[in-house]
């Protein structure tokens, strides 16, 4: 099951890459670096999330910071 999801993610990433890469101008070096960086960040995050779905996320972090205020609203 998990290998399937990982394969699916890789296919999706490959499709994004194949679609977008030829469209970036050869002169836009910085864009290429950012594109690759963001895409690999996404891939790594996706694989981590597939292997460990209960990873505490951004919502938990924000909830932790704002909890004292949130308690004001009760419950």
């Amino acid at each position, binding site marked *: 099951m998990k290998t399937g999801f990982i394969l699916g993610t890789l296919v*999706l*990433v490959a499709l*994004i890459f194949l*679609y*977008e890469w030829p*469209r*970036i101008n050869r002169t*836009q070096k*910085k*864009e*290429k670096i*950012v*594109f690759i960086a*963001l*895409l690999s*960040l*996404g891939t790594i*995050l*996706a694989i981590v*999330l597939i292997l460990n*779905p*209960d*990873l505490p*996320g*951004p*919502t938990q972090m*924000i*909830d932790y*910071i*704002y*909890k004292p*205020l*949130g*308690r004001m*609203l*009760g*419950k």
Partner: protein
Amino acid sequence: MIEKGKISATQMGIMMYLTIIATAILLVPAITARQAKQDMWLSPFWASFIGFLTVYIAVQLHQLYPQKNLIEYSEDILGKFLGKAVGLIFLFFYLHVSGIIIREYGEFIVGSFLLHTPLVFVMGTIILVCSFAVRCGLEVIGRLAEMIVPVVIIMILILLILLIPDMEVANMFPIMEKGMMPSLKGAVIPQGWFTEFFLIAFLLPYVADRNKAKKWGMISVVAVMLTLSFVNIAVLFVLGELTAGFIYPAMSAVRYISIAGFLEHIEAIVAALWVAGVFLKIAVFYYALVLGTAQWLNLSDYRPIIFPVGFLLLLFSIWSASNLMELTHFLGSSSPFYRISIQMGIPLILLFIAKWRKRASNSNQGKYQG
């Protein structure tokens, strides 16, 4: 400047109207009702003050730095390092909030219509569609808004009219049984939605008729306030005290519509409205996020990063909550403070510093001249 398109002030107002109400009409009545009970129709009025304030702050900042948007002028105001830090906070905020919006959409569609479709697929398709809209630029999103909003308003009015036979005005009484506090407490949650008006900080530099921008921003706030109050009143009249128990009260209220035995199951229209509205909402957030990221990294074009950011959005929407209960709990407890502090708190501080800097530099110039 990365974005070359121009929108009119009217388009900006219309765009923001739909952006705010798209998720607000569906989720907010229940969360408001939990705090405000039968006074829930009052809450949007209190909440709108923060909407006016947010528009005012965004317009004031825009007047100080007419050609720039938030990511660019925060650097001018706070200096290179702190400015970049504020920009990063905003980018993370928009990534997270867009993820939550997409999750709300996915849960709604999977929970009420496409029961057997995987959540990831539903969310992935809306992101794909939105990424095409974002790719076309701001002008296209503006024109889309002009096309969708009249339909949405007419549909909301028709639904409200069709609900009249099921309404029970007595549900509203006693008005302010426990004083103002419950309605004020209930206003905290819509406030979170009203602060989303700060998105105009990303749109203002591309508005062609700038002197009208403030007027249309304010009109948009009033329109959102009226829509939310009317929806809250209608839901309250139909469902009464039960409102807080539903996840999507507006949807459940519409299920009551049954005219002469053949005009039934109109909730499909609500769903259609909602898909259209959320499509625009996600597109606007997505646009702000992609444009902001490109400016933060000093790129010359934002189009190459649309799909990678969309992929991240999909991941954040999955990551942001493990189920719908957790999501609505977050929306009802910490999220309003989160949204208010970032979309109103930080800009307010920026505005004060910017004003103070302007004044300091002006008085310095005065000294040299004198």
